[in-house]
């Protein structure tokens, strides 16, 4: 089962590439090179089996078919990665992660089919793990994709009996895994894969839209672990090392992200099952609000000395970030101090908003992280909230039981004036109403963000 020494050494080098890749990706200056080193390691590792005799065969069979399959996958991957809008990045990552998990499950099923009867109990347990968790990752990622792409509701989906079905599938998967270890039959593996799909769907359904990024990160870590287990089954060091690195760093990253949102991972996954969030009505309210036209807001901005912009996902969807930057440039030239307050989960994933604003060429130093700017809101004359909602919702501080309760928010409510650019009174991604909209010092400017932003820009220029 053991490959020649030179192959082992190449795999070792590839494993080191992956470590350097992760190290590089965690610093802004080294990130791009890190990614390229990882890609180089992966490509070299995949090329290796074409140049030696894998165990049991005198040469690699079906080479033309394999190369064709790689070409198809590569074309699909490159096309998707090139075409995707920056706003849709999170669901793209989810999809890539899902197909990886699916591939790992298929590889484990094949290995069970080919060599299952030769395996000891521990490799069989690893095979069962890969099949189940790979399927969970695949199905879960497809559901997160559907939620983010708004192919289905982004609100938590809970139905009576869900915990029972979930628990039942989970226990059934555990029992079947034990059976598989005793008798390595392919049909048990197939049933395990199906159960994994069910568990994956049920795991993600109850998660609310705003928490989906955390789940993507968690599923990413899951896929890493399945690849590691697959590496053990195939006695392949580079799969084991690469998979384990992703599993460990992915788990840690998930915890970091959950911390940034002030939530625990258990609460994100299972919070909705407890039925605690009764506030997530999702209905548009008909309570009175104060709305104004672009000209009124232009005057307000023109005489403000300290302005803070709170950008949200709505801004990016409407592609209004370029007009926004222009508006900020004009206001800055007239002497106002303007900064962007970036909530850690602004956009759909941590760091997503920085990518979107960088795309619009907003200077790096105007982007302020939450901790850095939260003290400044009380001195701000105007806070302009563009396409954001949940990240300034005071319910996170004041209303226990709200789905976002406990999430650190931007203190926009402390500013002298707050202006919301909104398309409608529809609640934010978390599906809860924002009390800040009804405060007396809040003004609403309704309309499509891009359209309104250019009207606002013209009105400010005309003053």
């Amino acid at each position, binding site marked *: 089962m053991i490959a020649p020494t030179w192959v082992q050494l190449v795999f070792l080098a590839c494993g080191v590439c*992956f*470590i350097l890749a*992760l190290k590089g*990706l*965690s*610093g*802004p200056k080294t*990130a791009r090179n890190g*990614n*390229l080193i990882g*890609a180089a390691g992966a490509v070299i590792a995949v090329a290796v*089996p074409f140049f030696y005799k*894998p165990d049991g*065969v005198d040469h*690699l*069979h079906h080479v033309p*078919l*394999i190369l064709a*399959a790689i070409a*198809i*996958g590569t074309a699909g*991957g*490159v096309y*998707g*990665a090139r075409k995707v*809008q*920056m706003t849709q*990045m999170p669901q793209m*990552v989810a999809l*890539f*992660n899902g*197909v*990886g998990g*699916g*591939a790992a499950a*298929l*590889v484990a099923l*094949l290995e069970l089919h080919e060599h299952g009867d030769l395996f000891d109990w*521990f490799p069989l347990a690893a095979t069962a793990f890969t099949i189940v968790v790979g399927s969970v990752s695949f199905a879960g990622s497809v559901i997160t994709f559907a939620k983010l792409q708004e192919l289905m509701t982004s609100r938590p989906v809970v139905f009576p009996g869900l915990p029972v079905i979930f628990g039942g599938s989970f226990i059934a998967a555990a029992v079947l895994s034990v059976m598989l270890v005793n008798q390595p039959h392919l049909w048990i593996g197939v049933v395990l894969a199906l159960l994994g799909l069910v568990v994956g769907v049920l795991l993600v359904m109850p998660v609310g839209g705003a928490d989906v990024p955390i789940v993507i990160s968690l599923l*990413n870590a899951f*896929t890493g672990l399945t690849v*590691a287990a697959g590496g*053990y089954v*195939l006695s*392949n060091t580079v799969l*084991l090392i690469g998979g*384990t*690195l*992703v599993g*460990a*760093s992915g788990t*840690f*990253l998930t915890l970091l*992200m959950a911390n940034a949102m002030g939530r625990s991972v258990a609460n994100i996954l299972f919070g909705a099952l407890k039925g605690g969030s009764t506030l997530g009505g999702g209905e548009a309210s008909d309570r009175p609000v104060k709305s104004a036209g672009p000209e009124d807001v232009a005057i307000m901005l023109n005489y403000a000395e300290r302005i803070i912009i709170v950008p949200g996902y709505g801004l990016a969807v409407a592609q209004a970030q370029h007009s926004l930057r222009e508006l900020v440039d004009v206001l800055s030239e007239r002497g106002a101090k303007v900064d962007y307050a970036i909530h850690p989960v602004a956009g759909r994933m*941590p*760091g997503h908003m920085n*990518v979107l604003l960088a*795309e619009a*060429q907003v*200077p790096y130093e105007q982007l302020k992280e939450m901790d850095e700017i939260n003290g400044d809101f009380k001195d701000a004359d105007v806070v302009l909230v563009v396409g954001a909602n949940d990240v300034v919702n005071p319910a996170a501080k004041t209303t226990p039981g709200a789905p976002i309760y406990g999430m650190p928010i931007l203190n926009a409510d402390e500013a002298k004036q707050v202006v919301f650019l909104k398309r409608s009174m529809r609640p934010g991604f978390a599906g809860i109403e924002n009390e800040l909209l009804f405060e007396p010092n809040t003004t609403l400017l309704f309309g499509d963000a891009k359209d309104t932003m250019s009207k606002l820009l013209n009105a400010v220029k005309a003053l």
Partner: protein
Amino acid sequence: MSVSVVWLTFFVLSVFVGIEVISKVSSTLHTPLMSGANAIHGIILLGAVLVTGTTDNTFALIVGLIAIVLASVNMVGGFVVTDRMLQMFVRKKPKADAATQTPGDTK
């Protein structure tokens, strides 16, 4: 000395390295880091190639080829999309670099 223990050693050491190397990441880079890690587990492609290339069963061959397509999407797409994201962070001196960047290229 059991071979399993050697594998366990690889596993445990990799866990620590995996946590250690990303422990100082800033929240700005969470998204690209997740995406890059996602691409790395696309290395399952190697496993898919090995399994597919050593079988002579037609059904297994078909399943293996599907796994290869899926894994290549994960690996190649993952690295390309991460690189696209990171292109936007390579602007430490905003004015100078902004001028050299061709507008519309990133959309």
